[in-house]
């Protein structure tokens, strides 16, 4: 399935900090603030825990974008550790650009525990930004793991991304397609 069709629904992974942004997500829920379902969140204890590998891994495994969230600078539960999130974020964008991936697929958002609405709004904005970028065709060695996921459904038109590993595939796994089939 080519994801360039209209109706592309991006899949996003979001990293949250246990103290601020995860609670902001909780608050968005408690307050019944609506945002699109394209994002799936992972809780870390601190945005400083974010290993850039997590982001690369998510992009390589089929995410079209990664949202990094944490406490506002100066409000870190661990005093100043969120500044490492900021540094790694800057580095990540450069790395991604060097790999030929739009840096805009990674976004950093600060959200305090009280900012459920802000987080929801930022998620919505980011989804639209990634939607505009289109699906990510990351040259990956996904095939190595395809045993677990079952055979790739369709290999047509893949492996054409520059720098792709031989046989690398960027198509959606059936599971991803499941999500994309959602209107």
């Amino acid at each position, binding site marked *: 399935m080519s994801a360039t069709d209209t109706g592309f629904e991006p*899949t996003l*992974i979001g990293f949250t900090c246990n*103290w*601020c942004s*995860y*609670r902001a*997500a*909780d608050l*968005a*829920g*408690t307050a*019944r*603030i*609506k*945002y699109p*379902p394209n994002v*799936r969140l*992972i*809780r*870390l*204890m*601190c945005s*400083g*825990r*974010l*290993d*850039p590998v*997590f982001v690369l*891994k*998510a992009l390589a*495994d*089929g*995410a079209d974008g990664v949202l990094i969230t944490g*406490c506002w600078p*100066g*409000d870190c*539960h*661990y*005093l*100043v*550790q969120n500044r*490492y999130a900021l540094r*790694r974020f800057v580095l990540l964008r450069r790395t991604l650009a060097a790999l030929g991936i739009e840096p805009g697929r990674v976004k950093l958002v600060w959200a*305090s*525990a*009280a*900012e459920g609405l802000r987080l*929801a709004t930022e998620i919505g904005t980011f989804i639209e930004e990634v939607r505009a970028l289109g699906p990510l065709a990351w040259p990956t060695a996904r095939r190595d*793991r395809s045993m*677990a*996921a*079952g055979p790739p459904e369709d290999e047509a038109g893949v492996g054409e991304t520059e720098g792709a590993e031989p046989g690398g595939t960027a198509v959606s*796994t*059936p*599971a*991803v397609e*499941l*999500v994309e089939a*959602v*209107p």
Partner: protein
Amino acid sequence: MTADEPAGTGAGPRIGVYVCHCGSNIAGAVDVEAVRDFAAAELAGRGVVVARDYKFMCSSLGQELIEQDVRELGLDRVVVAACSPHMHEKTFRGAVGRAGLNAYLCDLVSIREQVSWVHTDRAAATEKAKAILSGGVERIRHNVPLEPVVVPIDPATLVVGGGIAGITAALELANAGHKVYLVEKDPSIGGHMAQFDKTFPTLDCAACILTPRMVEVGSHPNVELLTWSEVVNVSGYVGDFQVTVLKKARYVDTELCTGCGICQEKCPKKVVDEVFEAGLGYRKGVYTPFPQAVPKYPVIDRYNCTYYEKGTCKACEKFCPTGAIRFDQQDELITFKVGNIVISTGFSLFDARRIEEYGYGRLPNVFSSLEFERLSNSAGPTGGRVVLRDGVTEPRSVAIVHCVGSRDRRYNAYCSAICCMQSLKFAHLVKEHTAATVYEFYIDMRTPAKGYDEFYQRLMDEGTIFVRGKVAAIHEAEAAEGAAGKLVVQVEDTLAGVQRRIPVDMVILSAGVEPRSDARDVARLFGISCSADGWLIEKHPKLDPIATMEEGVHIAGGVSGPKDIPASVAQGAAAAARVLSHIAAGQLELEPYKASVAATACSGCRLCNGLCPFSAISYLEDRAVSEINPALCQGCGVCVAACPAGAISASGFDTDQILAQIEGLLLEHVGPAGPTAGVLA
């Protein structure tokens, strides 16, 4: 990186999945049965041996269901898809614990706050719930048994802020027999309440009800009162906080001072008292803010002292009968240990100067609410005479303006909660002190507590004129308006539907309350969060309003939002009760999320050493490796992410857990493989 070999026994994990309906909270937006079937069919290859759904998983019956499965099906991992882990993770971990499984082999994934409550498209929400569950299942394959960290609780408590909330908390704790350090940055405790003349709705004299408590806390054998002091550093964690307090020089030897007040009498320097008298009165260079101050010792304001300015004077020293003046006194740093902290640093009043159209600061006879409190206070600068700024003329008409800086998106969007009642009190006090006509300009009259609406009724009896309308502007009467010298309140009387220009002699702006300007610094100092407004954030707004997300740090009173005196007192007592429960238990269990270095993998590069703000990482020269002190580690995980050798692991949030969760969220391993797990509704 992927874990094809599940953790645990060679036979592979035996995971139980439990999907909660939460009544209709989840089931209303997510097809719970489909999520259950997905787990049973598509995740069976990942070790899911049973998948169930239940109306209320957190109910005792729901918990028993899990316990029974753990015992009977030999589950070694449990994933519950329900609400936020902040809500019920403890509940379900308790359940598996009772069934004999290590509590940390149970995880809770949120399909309520993150799915059913925020999405409307049922099909999309269901698919997202499946992905989240898949992430949880992949993650839990890597969970390892952990034991909570047990910390002993030091029975001493730090109370920061000596207003009515802090005084109450300190007294409750001290009366229970425990040591309390009460730190106050002003020269006296008492807070805002000490500035008031009367309190609504009962019109008790504020001093009459507050002073006894101030005296009690000031002389309590269990209370160490540190006024004219500020907390400058806090380290450690619940049970064992190390606190550093800056005790500013008073330039008075409190051992010798009897509080006789002669120094204040003799001091030649008179300055406007911007704090206690709200700028409406004067104090001396050496002063106690008010006669009933606790402690009774004065302070010398060195920035307004003739001796410090010019090198001569020393009138206070000359006349002090006990020789207590110490010009050479230095600031002092005091350190001590406490097990718990209560923050009750209070609030500020909205600065009405910000609303230009009300003319405060420009039009002399526009007063702020705090100014009026002092004006009407018999111990205040006018001795309780309500007069215009000229200090002489009694007003014949007074306008009281509600919602000044509150319920206004330009300033503070929230309702300050106290101003309606405060304004009614003002109207009563004006009537009590003068023969003036009193107007109240309000948007909505909010009197929602015991005796409050009755007070409103009483004010109507007293002849107060109520005009429903937010005041648009206040200006000097123009000659053409025929009320020279008066102020004109321009307002739409919304019930009459007409614009009115009402001439009055005096305007009182009932200013709302705001977080203190240093609220953010306070939050940072104690490692807790504050909202965008600047109010400190409670652990749960309804169920845990006096705890914070930092274990052992509690909040009480106006520091977490607008509150009147009864609410502040209740919170002070509630915070004390929580602290007492910690002290009585003697110890507390904490989450065992810590980093540790695998010495064999550590290259000794020392990169991690500088990353830890808690100084938990040290370098062992002899072995050329870094080591983490688990007692100091707070579990943020920065070092884990930074270690180039991957030698640092984080219990509870280890790299393989996160990577597996990513794979799960992206449905990497989904597919029918092996026998379908049992589907049991």
